[in-house]
């Protein structure tokens, strides 16, 4: 789960990391007397909102109302602006970069910092970025901050502020089951205070059962996708026209790859998962149907999910939802013969070979 800047900053505050004074509005009437100037920041999950005009500045309440009117409800980088974060302006002396993220290769947290913070951190060369692996059992200890401060060239009060801040950030990263806590820019202001200028926080979806406060519709997902979150299958919308239902993330992905290599455009990714129930197959069909595909393609390798169960689910869904689209099915694995027989009895063709099924899809799609 990607969190908005303001939510990330709420977490920072909770753990004691300094953030600018500010408040959030979702309506122009929520604007209240404040100390100006302020920054007016669109709360969207996009990396380049500054360049796209998503951040404005206001010197007075009138200015602010004007800016809020312009931003609220507009679409920036394809994302609707529903909330603004209004923050007191900071006199920036220097911008640093700081993050803790999950590092797949070292299998633990990775701390990264650079003296070249700000918008273009990705183009900063590796030699200007310090990377420190943190052992998950050993955890954070102060020497790590000293290594960072030295690399950044900080000393005195700045060094001790950064030390405290990194300790708090690691604590937050661990306690909140985070995959990423990124502060870019990490600001040194004109009074030599270190403040988190922005936040990019990702919480591990698998951990949400112990962080229920982060369970809400994911703004990066479509309505259908969010609705599917309560289901046992995984559903992602795409912009093609072949509705796909497969089992296993790898096989589903391989199915999309094969379609694409044949110049067919999938409408969605739907991985049934490892269940064996006709209901779930029906449910999957109802979801894909709402995405209105041109053709259905069901690609099943029967293991725990048995081929005949899927066949029964397809037949039930076809009848229940009165599906008019052509349904191409490929069944292999456990109970495949029985599954194909069930489908044939109900007027649905079934292939045992994936390539054959895809050739049929190519034909139905008008040939390539």
């Amino acid at each position, binding site marked *: 789960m*990607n969190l908005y800047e303001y939510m990330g900053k709420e977490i920072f505050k909770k753990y004691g990391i300094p953030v600018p004074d500010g408040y959030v509005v979702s309506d122009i009437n929520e604007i209240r007397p404040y100390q100006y100037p302020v920054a007016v920041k669109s709360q969207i999950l996009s*990396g380049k909102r500054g360049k796209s005009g998503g951040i404005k500045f206001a010197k007075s309440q009138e200015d602010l109302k004007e800016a809020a009117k312009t931003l609220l409800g507009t679409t920036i980088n394809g994302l609707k602006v529903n909330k603004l974060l209004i923050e007191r302006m900071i006199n920036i002396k220097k911008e640093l*970069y700081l*993050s803790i*993220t*999950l*590092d*797949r*290769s070292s*299998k*633990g*947290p*990775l701390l*990264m910092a650079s003296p070249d913070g700000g918008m273009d*951190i*990705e183009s900063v060369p*590796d030699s200007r*970025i310090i990377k420190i692996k943190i*052992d*998950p*059992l050993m955890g954070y200890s102060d020497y790590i901050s000293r290594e960072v401060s030295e690399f950044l060239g900080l000393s005195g009060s700045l060094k001790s502020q950064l030390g405290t801040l990194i300790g708090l950030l690691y604590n937050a990263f*661990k306690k909140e*089951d985070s*995959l*990423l806590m*990124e502060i*870019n820019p990490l600001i040194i202001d004109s009074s030599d205070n270190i403040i988190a200028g922005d936040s*990019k926080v*990702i919480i*591990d*979806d*698998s*951990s949400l*059962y*112990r962080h229920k406060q982060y369970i809400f519709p994911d703004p990066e997902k479509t309505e259908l996708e969010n609705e599917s979150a309560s289901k046992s299958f995984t559903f992602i919308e795409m912009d093609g026209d072949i509705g796909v239902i*497969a089992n*296993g*993330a*790898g*096989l589903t*992905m*391989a199915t*999309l*790859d*094969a*379609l*694409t*290599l044949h110049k067919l455009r*999938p409408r969605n990714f739907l991985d049934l998962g*490892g269940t064996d129930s006709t209901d779930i197959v029906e449910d999957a069909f109802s979801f894909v149907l709402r995405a209105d595909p041109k053709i259905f393609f069901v690609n099943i*390798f*029967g*293991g*725990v999910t048995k081929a005949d169960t899927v066949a029964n689910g397809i037949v039930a869904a076809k009848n229940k939802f009165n599906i008019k689209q052509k349904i191409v099915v490929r069944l*292999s*694995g*456990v109970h495949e013969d029985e599954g194909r027989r069930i489908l044939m009895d109900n007027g649905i063709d079934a292939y045992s*070979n*994936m*390539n054959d099924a895809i050739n049929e899809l190519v034909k139905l799609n008008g040939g390539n």
Partner: protein
Amino acid sequence: MGVIKMVLITKNTRVIVQGMTGHQGAFHSGEMIKFGTNVVAGVSPGKSGGTVNGIKIYETVMDTLELMPEASMLAVPAPFVRDAAFEAIDNGLKLIYILAEHVPVHDTMEIVAEANRKGVTVIGPNSPGITVPGEAKIGIMPNHIFRKGDVAIASRSGTLTYEIVKAVTDAGFGESTVIGLGGDPIVGLTFLDVIKMYNEDKNTKRIVLVGEIGGSEEERAARYVKENVKKPVVGYITGRSAPPGKRMGHAGAIIERGTGTAESKIKAFMDAGINVADYPDDIPKLLK
């Protein structure tokens, strides 16, 4: 005839199943026993005393120690994986297979760190397990798709692995070892660990690597193959058509620096002399 060394498990490996009384534990332990796995005990806190598949259920891993278990299958739900894994490690088991998906990554990190510290091999989480045809399997791969042979397979997928195993078997080959590494961002065994084992395994003559987008394990394994592996290797990468995934902020970009994409992985495979299949069904043809 000397003792033949297998990859990780043999038919003699003494296996316990934590969570054996659950739906998955009961079903898959039954399949494992049919496959020839030496399941010596089940563990289900609060449900000990009875039997499942003719195997006695114990309250704790500690209680099974007199049976000298060596490996454990964790068939417990994701929220209980950390505790079950620590129980197995602390009681001296040397191979732990984690079935569950959706294990919190911080839990996995701690399990893997602890396992490395104690010299314990972890397969998974979110993995179909390991199968050594003619010997044993720990995991959930369907029994009937296997035939004993000389093709070793390592994969990050589940169902797709079965698909490929079946294709390999149907084409007249057989498998020496099949390991599903698991689909999570952090897993115990990775391609590099497994390619080394396969390279040294006397029973393996050919190797299949089934990778996917994300991370750089395929790239690392490819470097190893290039420098060390003489056996023919076939590769397949899923996710060529995937839209760019959720980015891990700037940090993700800084770490990956261009690795992690299907293109990067396919290129790394090709550079290493690995034959890359476009479709899963093409893999058997490339095995010669």
